[in-house]
């Protein structure tokens, strides 16, 4: 039987392995630490705006991340609650220890998944295809496909002030050796940077001087059936002038500002020193104090990521109101690591250079557990399809955030850590959290990721939606002087969500989807037209084109197209630097080719 090796047991690796196991394929996970699968190495939370959307989509595809998130959750909040439901994003604070324990138990209990603790140092190829891997203890291991999910471990370097040490995250080693494989097959590696803040002891904080942040009550979860009654608190703290002065005074001890760190960091999740330098007129930056677990005595200081030396971080922390007597469990640091620009991947996340090698997660230049899991899912399914000789599994931009994410990666490439935003989706109003199952169940079922029960559940939901809509049409509502149907009420009221049931999960889904259908109707009509247009371009396949034969392309455009190798014109049109005239040239070339074929057939 064919076996797939998954290198790494983080969020991407676990999702890959789980998907493969459901497709009936034997999986071997090779990880540096088999007791901590799905480790939550940075912020103790899952979801949020766009990221919550991803988790719901992973849920619709039968993934493992939403399952474990709900079980390990400590608090829920629906972000953007005051806006329209298309941009609501559910976020859960999670117990770091429980998450990793539940994930390890869950994955380890699956029959066709084997887990070994070892380090993969090479990939064996033969005739442009993968044949196996080399692990440092076990030696050569045969397999039909590999999913590489090494996160930040590839040549990982950790920085804190003047200190530098090797590793993918604190307490773990770095992984080396794979870069030789990448070099051999002509894959370019780049360097990125990320960071994590200090952890403090709860008992040492003056909570009375912080702003308390409660969780939201009600039916909030990623799995529909799950309800968490008891919730833990978060707190808000703020930096001040004094903190900023400490940072500015010590910039000459920052590895970032001294040029030791070459990798590019995320603009949307900058270190505190970055924030202070770039927004020098801001008097204060907001910090979130988040629990690390139910029984955990530590808290995570979201917003205080730093790679300044420990003594500077100490001074900084103690200048914050409420943190005067804070005891620091460990200090923030920066991680610099190698990544593979995903422009070198196919939309299946397979390397263009080698058949059967798939990459997912942070190694592709993304940040975030959710982005990693989404890629893990797609890479896993495609590795499975590769082994089984089935068609690739590619989700479109108009049906999912997963599709947006992957298309962005392979079409536009990455030069700074990539995170998903709702604004990256052209068809945002079509992609709410609540419609995830409606959008993706059929696709997931085709791939063998979910069972028939779920399919039937969704079909039933479809019928109930129609029924609910009919009900609303016949329901009369009085608003002031006016008499109107439920539909009109929803259309005309700027906040129709306040009439929704809050105590019944199922009716909640039903009514939110209905509200979206009604309120976004006009925009969706326009989107349909755009989608149709995009589809027309999608039909024009150009994956077999010799770009040197196409007239009218500039040298730069030719290079870009050769690099990305877009599957169709729609994808080509999104490559940065590709001009409309290039698309037209390709269109004409395709048409000419087609005419040639016709002519030669006729002749």
């Amino acid at each position: 039987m064919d076996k797939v090796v998954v290198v790494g047991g983080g969020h991407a690796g676990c999702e890959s392995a789980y998907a493969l196991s459901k497709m009936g394929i034997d999986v071997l996970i090779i990880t540096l630490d088999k007791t901590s699968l799905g480790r939550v190495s940075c912020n103790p939370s899952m979801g949020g705006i766009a990221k919550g959307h991803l988790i719901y989509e992973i849920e619709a595809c039968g993934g493992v991340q939403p399952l474990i998130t709900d079980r390990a959750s400590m608090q829920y909040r629906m972000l953007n609650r005051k806006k329209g439901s298309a941009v609501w994003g559910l976020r859960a604070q999670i117990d770091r220890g429980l998450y990793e324990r539940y994930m390890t138990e869950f994955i380890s209990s699956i029959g066709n998944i084997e887990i070994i603790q070892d380090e993969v140092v090479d990939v064996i190829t033969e005739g442009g295809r993968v044949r196996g891997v080399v692990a440092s203890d076990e030696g050569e291991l045969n397999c039909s496909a590999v999913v590489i999910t090494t996160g930040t471990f590839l040549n990982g370097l950790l920085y804190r002030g003047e200190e530098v040490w090797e590793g993918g995250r604190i307490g773990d080693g770095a992984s080396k050796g794979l870069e030789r494989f990448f070099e051999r097959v002509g894959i370019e590696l780049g360097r990125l940077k990320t960071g994590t803040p200090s952890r403090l002891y709860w008992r040492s904080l003056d909570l009375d001087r912080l702003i308390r942040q409660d969780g939201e009550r009600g039916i909030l979860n990623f799995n529909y059936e799950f309800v968490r009654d008891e919730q833990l608190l978060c707190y808000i703290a703020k930096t001040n002038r004094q903190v900023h002065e400490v940072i500015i005074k010590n910039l000459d001890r920052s590895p970032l500002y001294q040029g030791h760190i070459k990798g590019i960091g995320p603009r949307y999740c900058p270190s505190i020193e970055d924030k202070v330098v770039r927004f020098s007129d801001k008097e204060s930056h907001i910090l979130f104090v988040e629990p690390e677990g139910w029984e955990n005595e530590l808290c995570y200081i979201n917003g205080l990521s730093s790679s300044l030396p420990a003594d500077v971080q100490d001074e900084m922390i103690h200048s914050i109101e409420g943190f005067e007597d804070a005891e620091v469990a460990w200090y923030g640091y920066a991680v610099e690591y190698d990544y593979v620009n995903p422009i070198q991947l196919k939309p299946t996340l397979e390397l263009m250079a080698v058949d059967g090698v798939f990459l997912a997660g942070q190694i592709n230049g993304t940040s975030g557990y959710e982005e990693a899991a989404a890629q893990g899912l797609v890479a896993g399914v495609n590795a499975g399809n590769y082994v089984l000789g089935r068609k690739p599994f590619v989700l479109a931009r108009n049906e999912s955030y997963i599709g947006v994410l992957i298309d962005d990666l392979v079409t536009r490439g990455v030069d700074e850590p990539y995170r998903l935003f709702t604004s990256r989706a052209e068809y945002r109003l079509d992609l709410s959290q609540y419609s995830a199952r409606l959008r993706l169940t059929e696709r997931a079922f085709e791939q063998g990721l979910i069972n028939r029960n779920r399919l039937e559940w969704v079909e039933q939901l479809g019928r109930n939606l129609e029924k609910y809509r009919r009900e609303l049409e016949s329901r009369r509502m009085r608003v002031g002087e006016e008499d109107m149907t439920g539909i009109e009420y929803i259309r005309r009221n700027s906040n129709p969500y306040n009439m929704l049931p809050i105590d019944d999960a199922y009716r909640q889904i039903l009514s939110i989807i209905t509200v979206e259908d009604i309120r976004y109707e006009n925009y969706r009509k326009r989107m349909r037209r755009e989608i149709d247009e995009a589809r027309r371009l999608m039909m024009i396949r150009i994956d077999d084109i010799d770009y040197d034969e196409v007239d009218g392309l500039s040298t730069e455009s030719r290079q870009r197209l050769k690099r990305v190798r877009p599957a169709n014109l729609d994808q080509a049109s999104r490559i940065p630097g590709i001009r409309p005239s290039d698309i037209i040239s390709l269109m004409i070339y395709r048409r000419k080719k087609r005419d040639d074929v016709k002519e030669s057939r006729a002749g």
Partner: protein
Amino acid sequence: MSENNIIVAEATPRGVGAISIVRLSGDNCFTVAKSFMSGLPEDNPPESGKVCLVNLVDGEKVIDKATVVFYKSPYSYTGEDMVEIFCHGSPAIVSTIVSIAESLGARRARAGEFTKRAFINGKVDIITAEAINSLTRSMTKVGSSIAMSVMKGNLKTVIGDISKGMLLIQALIEAIIEYEEDIPVEGTMKRVNTELNELIKQLQRIEASYGAFKVLSGGANVVIVGRKNAGKTTLFNRLLGYERGIVSEHPGTTRDYIREPLHLGDDYLIYLTDIAGLGEVSDDIDMMATESARGVISNADILVFLVDVQYGWGGIEDKILGSLSDKEIVYVVSRADLCEEGVVKVFKKVESITGCKPIVISSITMQGIDELRERVRAIMSSLSKIGTFLVSERQRELVWEMIIHLKRVVNLIERGEGIEMVAEEMRCAIRCLELFEGRGYTDEMIDKIFEEFCVGK
């Protein structure tokens, strides 16, 4: 298949002249061209951009002696291999050359096809292509200089600023969606509103510029209106400088409208139109004349409104004024020579009703004729000071759509609708902008744009 690819057309206007130019473009067009030329230098292919003197031959027969230039791809107007033949300017010679080229496999170019190819081959962008089109069509110096300024990038700069403004608004709105915990919503929305209103105003000015461009480039429709027998046709003839229309003492002499072009100095062109007098309708023909006059008025850019000094401002004038809506009007007190004592009275009356000082004219003594011409010229000249012009209907439509979407954005914000819908409307506006700049496109759109272009270019 590749023969299909060669297009041929006359690049100069049809008619007799010293020289006409025939242009060929496409793969292998050198071979086609060479096969009806003799006396070309030996080098193969001829040096790009070099002028050669050749005989054009039809079989054995020499049809003309001409200069030709071969342009090697991509160093040509279309970006393809291209040949330009400068033959003697006889329609017969030109059509023979085109026919020979056709018999050798070239196809007659469709309207705008050379520029379309230039666009496809990335030689010009859409805004430049439109500017080239309006340059070739411009009837006036001012029109050409506007088109030139667009070709040089004037419009692109202005649209670039609009684009920056739109992206700023979009960024602010998207930030509110993506960073709900970090962004102060109220202050940000306030800024969005200010920026929006500024942008809408700017776009409205830009949209209005298209009308001005049409007037400046293609000529203004100037229509003389007034009651019957107010002296419209006499004035018409005076302005033209020759007796074009029949003049008589009988009211209602003019029935059909007459239109003639008239240059105002070097810069401006107007189409002066004389129409039937308005007022009481006496018979069927009169009724038809009035109907046609109304049609002409509705298409007018500038109206010269004659008030007969003998009758002064009466009910007829009230009615006429009511039908002119918001057009540019120059008021004239006519036939001043007939009733000198009435002039001041009528002048004051017109001024008090319209708020404008009329010009007092006499087509007999020529009093005020120059002043009237100067006034019309001044109106045209004030239009030309706008600075940035749209030069195609496509551009105007897109700017209009942008305004609609931005106004909807304002409206959605006022009503307190979900910000994700505000963002969607904003995206619509930006999509129009992309289309304007030629960044979004469809097959049909490209065809439609280039259908508007004239042959040859």
